[in-house]
Every structure is written in structure tokens, then in C-alpha cells.
């Protein structure tokens, strides 16, 4: 059974239809990527799935439960977590306090220390800078913090919206390695990326989103080899 199942999802901003009924699924343990150009509806999809923006039609099922109309904070408590586009870390809080916010949905304090250690192990830079105000971190460090913060809730499904945006090529590679690593440790991943080449390379499956509709789907390798994807997204 799929961990996340999206069926005929439609979202509109006023008269503009951003999603025209898309369907996709993410199975437990997979890395699934949505690729597409700017304005294709990738971020809208991510935000609608986690309940930040309401959908007009369609259903979202997570872990066997209908979460279509559920408010975002409740969905997060079910074990879904998102690294939003543009990171959106809490600039005025310290690195440590940001991670504390990430653990907000976990009522039991006893796992906090363990989770914090795991995040610090994965991102040693964050441990070094734990008392620094987050707004003063570099772009790469902020991305690490956003990922660490999302991991603090021990998500079953981690959604990442453009995690490579604005990073240097070296850091982009590092981010994709970390995503692979997180997945290997048992977290299912839904990824949205403009960097189609790198994301298809680590994906089990992928969907191509174009102006609010899914136009192609397949395994990461299949899509990377497909002529259309090559032409439109890989620039070959």
C-alpha cells in the first residue's frame, strides 16, 4: 500500500487553476521526485498535500487515512514533515531553538536528545553553530538547518521543496547525498526539484509536472533516458 496517495488533486488561486487534477503515489521507502519548470505547480502540490493550502477537489490519503481536509498542524503530527521552498527557518531564533521547534509535534521529551544528536551527527556544522542566530548562517547552512529541523519530528514521509535552490554545485551534491542517506535510514522521500538530472539519479520513481498536470511518469532511470525529459529538463 502506498504511504501517500494523491488522487485528482485540484487547487485554484482565485480564477487561476494551479493544479488540474493530478494523481500520484509514494510507496514506503521510496524516493519520488516531481520535476517541472517554474510555475508547473510543484510547490502548490507540496503545500496542498500537507494542508497549507486548501484543495478544491480530489483526495489525499496518508498512511491509510484521508487527510484531504485536515489542517496542516494535525498532518504534521501524523509523521509528515516538509522542508519548504526557500527554507523558511526561523531567522531570529538560534540554531538549537530552530531544532527545538522542529520537535514541537513530539510531545515526549525523552527522544529529543537522541534526535538532536542524530541531527548534529548528520550535520556537524549545526552542532558547531548551535547557539548562533539562524539568520546569520550561510545559505548552505540554512538549508542544512531546514533539513535538520524537518527531521526532528521523526517523519515517516519527508517532503523537500527545491532543496538545492541557490546552492553552490558542491553543496548541491552534498544535499543530494544527504537525501539519499536519510532515505537509506528508512525515511520515505517526496522531492520537488528543478535540478532534474541530479534528482532523477537518486529517485526510484518520478513524475513530470507541466502547467498543473502530470504529463509523464516512470522510474528515475526511465525518465532520465526519455527524449522529452532530456530535451525539456536536462538540456541535452
Amino acid at each position, binding site marked *: 500500500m502506498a504511504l501517500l496517495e494523491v488522487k485528482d488533486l485540484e487547487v485554484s488561486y482565485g480564477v487561476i487553476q494551479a493544479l488540474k487534477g493530478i494523481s500520484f503515489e509514494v510507496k514506503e521507502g521510496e524516493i519520488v521526485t516531481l520535476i517541472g519548470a517554474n510555475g508547473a505547480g510543484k510547490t502548490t502540490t507540496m503545500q496542498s498535500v500537507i494542508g497549507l493550502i486548501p484543495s478544491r477537489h480530489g483526495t489525499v490519503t496518508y498512511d491509510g487515512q484521508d487527510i484531504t481536509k485536515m489542517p496542516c498542524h494535525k498532518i504534521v503530527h501524523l509523521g509528515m514533515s516538509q522542508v519548504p521552498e526557500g527554507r*523558511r527557518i526561523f531567522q*531570529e531564533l538560534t540554531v538549537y531553538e530552530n531544532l527545538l521547534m522542529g520537535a514541537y509535534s513530539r510531545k515526549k521529551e525523552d527522544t529529543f536528545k537522541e534526535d538532536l544528536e542524530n541531527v548534529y551527527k548528520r550535520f556537524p556544522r549545526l552542532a558547531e553553530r548551535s547557539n548562533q542566530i539562524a539568520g546569520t548562517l550561510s545559505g548552505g547552512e540554512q538549508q542544512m538547518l531546514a533539513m535538520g529541523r524537518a527531521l526532528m519530528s521523526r517523519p515517516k514521509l519527508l517532503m523537500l521543496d527545491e532543496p538545492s535552490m541557490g546552492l553552490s554545485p558542491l553543496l548541491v551534491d552534498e544535499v543530494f547525498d544527504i537525501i539519499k542517506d536519510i532515505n537509506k535510514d528508512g525515511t520515505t522521500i517526496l522531492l520537488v526539484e528543478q535540478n532534474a538530472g541530479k534528482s532523477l539519479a537518486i529517485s526510484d520513481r518520478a513524475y513530470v509536472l507541466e502547467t498543473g498536470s502530470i504529463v509523464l511518469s516512470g522510474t528515475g532511470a526511465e525518465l532520465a533516458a526519455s527524449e522529452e525529459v532530456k530535451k525539456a529538463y536536462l538540456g541535452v
Partner: protein
Amino acid sequence: MEFIETLINGLSIGSTYAMIALGYTMVYGIAKMLNFAHGDVIMVGGYMIYVGLTVSGNPIISFLAAVLCCIVLGITIEKVAYRPLRGASPLAVLITAIGVSYLLQSSAQMIFGSAPKMVTIADLGNLKFAGLSIPVYIIVTLGCSVVIMTALSLFVKYTRTGRAMIAVSEDKGAAQLMGINVNRIIMITFAIGSGLAAFAGLFMLMKSPSLSNTLGAMPGIKAFTAAVIGGIGSIPGAMLGGILMGVVEAISLTVPPVAPYTDAIEFIILIIILLVRPTGILGKKRREKV
């Protein structure tokens, strides 16, 4: 000696403004709206103290009942008037807030009449030491304010709910992604702000016993000014702005040629500070994301 007395008086007026300014600034920071009915919650608190004193005669019970009523009132206003407008244009919310303000003032007038009520809470007398003569109500006001403001600062910094408030004020969407129930945090903010308004009502009645349905109007505007001077959205800013306003007011009132223009002087300070620092003394410049 006289100057020290004036200064202490100023601190006490200032901490009353700070109590009110905290309500404005917290609601602005978290719900991103100007709650212009906030001053009238003070007035309702005042009338509740009056009713309590008439019924029970016990100032402490009356005051606690007033705090409770104000908290319930604040939560109700938020739920009935503001929550349905979440996401609506800021102008619609502003007009609604002004409407709530008039609703509270008119209701008070209908229920209690337009003649001011005299509310004598308790005659506490004066405290004399080291050549100073300070009314005890001023000391009570200062003491309560210091305790409350310290407690509030610790609450925001060190509790789970307090940190959630900071998160919501910074980025509502990201806060939701952390699993924070934004509506609940906004409700708690209104509850705290309205509870503080009841304290302000008590302080004002201790200072001058005359109670009418416009009790909260002018202090509300001044406290809002104080919040803007300090940097709206900033809790230490509201405290600082409030104290500053109070001290300026107290000093200005003792200088005969400028005393009649005290209110004007306070608003001139607002204009000067906004010219020099548009975000207020402690306000942070927010980076607008493109």
C-alpha cells in the same frame, strides 16, 4: 526629591502603558492585525471591578473576576469577530476592530449609563521614606508590572507555547509545518493581552477612581503609540516604549508652560522616532522576500 517622586510616578504611568502596549504588540506580532478594541477591554475590566466591588466588596475577588472576564472577552472577540476574517484584507480586519471598539463602548453605556462611576478600590495611603512620599498604589503598580513583565518574557523565551508564539510571529506557514496550531496560539495571545488589559484597568482606577465607557480610549491610543515607538511586534519594545511615554508624561506634567501640551509632546516623540527609526527603537527591519 520632587524629581525622584515625579520619576517614580512616571515609571508607574509608564508600566500601565506598557501593560496595554504588550497586548497591542503581541497581537500585532502574532496575528498581524491592529486590535483597536484592545483599549476598550481595559474599560470592560474597569466595569467588572466596579460590579465586583458592588456585589462582593472585596477588591481582590473583584479584580480576579475582572481578569477572568477580560480573558473570556478577548478570546470571544477573536473567535467571533477576527477569526472569520483570517486571510481577508487588513483593511477589513481594521474596520472590524474599530466596530468592536464602538460595540464595547456603546454596550457599556447602555448597561451602566453615561455618568461616570466612582470606583474606590482601597485607600492605600502614602509611603514615606528617605524624605520621599510615594503613594502606595504606585508601588503596587510598579511591583505588579515588574513581576508580570518578567514572567511574560520568561514564558515567551522558555516555554513550548512561548516559543511557538515567536515561530508564528516570524512565519505562520513554517510554524504550521512544525505542527503548531496557529489558531490556538492566536487565541492564547488574545487571552494574555486581555488579561494584561485588566491589570491596566486596575492600575488606572487606583490612580483615579472615575470610570466611564471611554476609560480605555486615550490610554489605548497612547499605549499603541508606545508600542510603535518601541517597535511594534517586539515585546521588550512595548515595555520600553510604555515606560518612555510614562516618564515623559510625568515630567511634562510638572513643567507648567508645557503641561497643557503633554499629549502633543508624546505624539511628537512618536513622529521624531519614526523619522529617525521607522521600525521603532527595538523593531527589526524585516527582509522582504521576493
